[in-house]
């Protein structure tokens, strides 16, 4: 298979995005649909069984919570916000990497995203689902959660739009919906592939309904590409805004350690940081179990690891700035909040956070680490642990010791705090298992589109080229410089 010279970066001699003998359009189709069309491997069944078990735990925890009330959790004075909000922020944060990969990397023309964006977006949807359960169940009377929606009612009651918790309702729900739409639009051509290959009527109808009758028409692709680009353009500020809104939950307060202006970009960077780590964790497993190693290659991990290093450094910058300004401000409460984090009763949590978030990603300065599967797997898990602890440290340390020493306390999670959190992983992995079983986990049409043979090279010049726009004057003839137009004959 000839490879266009254009795809080899002259500096780093980047390998092809798709490796292996079967790097053809059909090869990609076969590789990607195999997990969907064939019986899944044993690993899938085991994972699914374990996930279902944890999902069951989730169900039981929620049922018990609704029956007994919020008292089953460890939340109490002075720490009125405990694990549930930490878990909420944790899951929303994880979701953001999916949108980054789908939308932001698309806008930056990073072709390597095409092998992982489908799974990453799916991860976003499932993470948002997990995230939304926590505000849903923590309200004390979850059966009147609908009061949070601005629907006219007989009590003349309306939501309090000035509250950041209301902003969360809108932001996270809209984020879920827009991510769903973006993911679905991307799926349409691939669902058509599954429909066309379906061997049973049930599959043909099931995939066919959602494929919307897609027939690969260029007239449709034109609208599709525009919609995709605009969705990417909308999803990018959306991602920034959602985690900023989540950070507002804390930053609009007057609590030392919470009220600081850097929270919005700091939280966004942290979200991408943890989400990218989760993508790596999932991809390390999936590519081996589902034989996608030619599509998800060391190059992809190299790029993801660099993003982890970048966002981890931004998070580190935020830690340092906060610490400095806590001193600079001269506000004794602010300074105490930070010294308490590092040296008070929760110092253990703080140092777990620092070592996982700031220290562990430093290995990614080395290319060897960025492309070593064991290192990637271990660091990605450490990062997620660290990011959970970051939210824990932020929430709990500022609450357990605020302005009045007589109100100080110590928070301990209850069994049901832990059970609910672990159970949420059950929901996440169950959904993810179902996803890889029934839907193509790589965006086939996108990957095909970045193959070298997807581009028509060596064509004769178009007799009726597009009329140039007035400002685009043709390049002036310059001695010694060939015009950037085809010479004529194919090489």
């Amino acid at each position, binding site marked *: 298979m000839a490879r266009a010279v254009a795809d080899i970066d*002259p*500096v*780093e001699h980047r390998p092809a995005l798709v490796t292996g003998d079967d790097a053809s359009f059909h090869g990609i189709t076969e590789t990607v649909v195999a997990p969907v069309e064939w019986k899944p491997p044993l690993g899938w069944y085991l994972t699914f069984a374990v996930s279902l078990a944890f999902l069951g735990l989730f169900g039981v925890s929620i049922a018990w919570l609704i029956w007994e009330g919020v008292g089953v959790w460890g939340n109490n004075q002075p720490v009125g916000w405990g694990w549930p909000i930490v878990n909420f922020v944790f899951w929303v944060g994880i979701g953001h990497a999916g949108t980054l990969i789908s939308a932001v990397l698309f806008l930056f023309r990073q072709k390597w995203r095409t092998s992982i964006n489908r799974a990453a977006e799916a991860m976003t949807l499932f993470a948002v689902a997990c995230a939304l359960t926590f505000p849903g169940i923590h309200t004390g009377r979850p059966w009147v959660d609908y009061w949070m929606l601005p629907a006219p009612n007989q009590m003349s009651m309306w939501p309090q739009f000035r509250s950041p918790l209301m902003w969360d309702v809108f932001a996270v729900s809209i984020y879920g919906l827009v991510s769903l739409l973006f993911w679905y639009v991307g799926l349409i051509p691939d669902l058509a592939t599954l429909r066309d290959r379906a061997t049973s009527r049930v599959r043909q109808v099931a995939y066919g309904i959602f494929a919307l009758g897609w027939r690969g028409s260029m007239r449709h692709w034109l609208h599709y590409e525009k919609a995709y680009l605009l969705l990417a353009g909308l999803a990018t500020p959306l991602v920034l805004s959602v985690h*900023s809104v989540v950070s507002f939950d804390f930053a*609009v307060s007057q609590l030392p350690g919470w009220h600081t202006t850097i929270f919005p970009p700091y939280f966004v960077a942290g979200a991408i940081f943890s989400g990218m780590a989760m993508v790596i964790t999932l991809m390390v497993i999936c590519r081996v179990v589902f034989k996608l190693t030619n599509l998800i290659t060391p190059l992809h991990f190299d790029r993801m690891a660099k993003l982890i290093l970048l966002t981890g450094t931004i998070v580190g910058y935020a830690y*340092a700035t906060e610490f400095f*300004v806590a001193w600079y401000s001269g506000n004794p409460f602010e300074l105490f909040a930070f010294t308490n984090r590092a040296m008070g009763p929760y110092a253990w949590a703080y140092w777990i956070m620092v070592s996982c978030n700031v220290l562990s990603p430093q290995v990614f300065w080395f290319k060897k680490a960025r492309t070593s599967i064991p290192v990637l797997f271990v660091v990605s898990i450490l990062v997620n642990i660290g990011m959970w602890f970051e939210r824990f440290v932020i929430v709990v340390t500022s609450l357990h010791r605020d302005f009045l020493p007589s109100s100080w306390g110590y928070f301990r999670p209850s069994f049901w705090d832990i059970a609910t959190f672990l159970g949420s992983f059950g929901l996440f992995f169950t959904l993810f298992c179902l996803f890889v079983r029934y839907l193509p986990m790589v965006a086939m049409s996108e990957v095909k*589109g970045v193959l070298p043979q997807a581009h028509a090279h060596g064509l004769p010049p178009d007799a009726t080229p597009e009329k140039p726009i007035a400002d685009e004057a043709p390049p002036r003839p310059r001695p010694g410089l060939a015009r950037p*137009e085809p010479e004529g004959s194919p090489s």
Partner: protein
Amino acid sequence: MAHDDAHHEDAHHGHDAPKITADRVALPAGHPLRRLLPVGGAVGALALVATFALGLGHPHELYSSYLLAFFYWLTLALGGLFFVLLQFATRAGWSVVVRRVAEHVSGTLPLFALLFVPLALAVGQLYHWSEAGAMDHDPLLAGKAPYLNEGFFITRGVFFVLAWSLLGWWFRRRSMAQDTSHDPGATRFLQSASAPALIVFAVTLTFASFDWVMSLDPHWYSTIFGVYIFAGCAVAIFSLVSLLSMALEKGGGSKSGGPSGGPLAGLVTVEHYHDLGKLLFGFVVFWAYIAFSQFMLIWYSNIPEETVWYRHRLEHGWKAVTILLAVTHFAIPFFYLILRRTKRNRPLLAIGCLWMLAVHWLDLFWLIKPAVGAGPMPTLLDLLAFLGTGGLFLATLAWLMRKPATVPVGDPRLAESLSFENM
């Protein structure tokens, strides 16, 4: 839909592309930008002398005007450094053809080491916390003394300007060396160096903003302040690079530039401006996001220690400026730069870039002047200081541009950049 950014017709095949030689892209002898050297130098020197002459009796006003001018042109130079570091860190191919311009801009940083001297000498005139006796009755300020004291302040300042000068000069020099050596190893090296350099950039910029701008109001603080200044630098540099590239496309007519084209004519295409425009738009939105976050959080918690900073900008006539800033720095550019048409049309984009450079000044004016108790109208001193520092900046830029190639001719990704097509 993942558009191949290296899609091109057959004429360019990576290294087989016809080599663009350094004298093809050298600045022609009669090019208008060359005139910036004598003109800018003269205007700059004269204006600066006039500034100091006029301001002698009013040191507080003098140095606040000087600070504003210094900081404005500094953010352009720092933006240049950011542009260069960013393109290397991201291994970008599209931008190679415009990167040299940014390298020249960042090469002016040593000038700011010189221009820092008056500020260093006048700390006492400008910063309230350095006044004698300021800390005696103010325990809050006294607590900041380990950081806000003249000696450490000046030391830090010297460190920042030297660090920037070194980075700017060094990256430019390495890139220029590649013009003759054509060694891809240079690119690899600069790529590796750009990441730690970015960290140094971020930390120094943050503390410089804290020191020179935020401490004008020493009781106030905001952790996002460094990011806010950075956003302004980014907006400024994408505007400046676009404008300079357009200026270099036009020419003074000489043997090297072709009939009436400048050194960049035919090399920088509408595709590059589209990308520069997209990045400019993105950073305009980013600036607004940071500015709004800072404002809304402080407004919401309503803590007097913090809100006082905004109160200064909403009273005594400053409210109009605040509204003007929001409208001109965000609302108008948002709807203007979002259009594909604007970004792909040189005159339209140029208007947008000039506009952003102007409102960037307004942003810094709004940051600095209320903190020194000035009124909302710019003064003659502001204008003179602006011309003074700006003239010297442009003269330095012209001096840096006079010999080297305006395009990194030895960069291995140049061919990719020349044939770049947008989405």
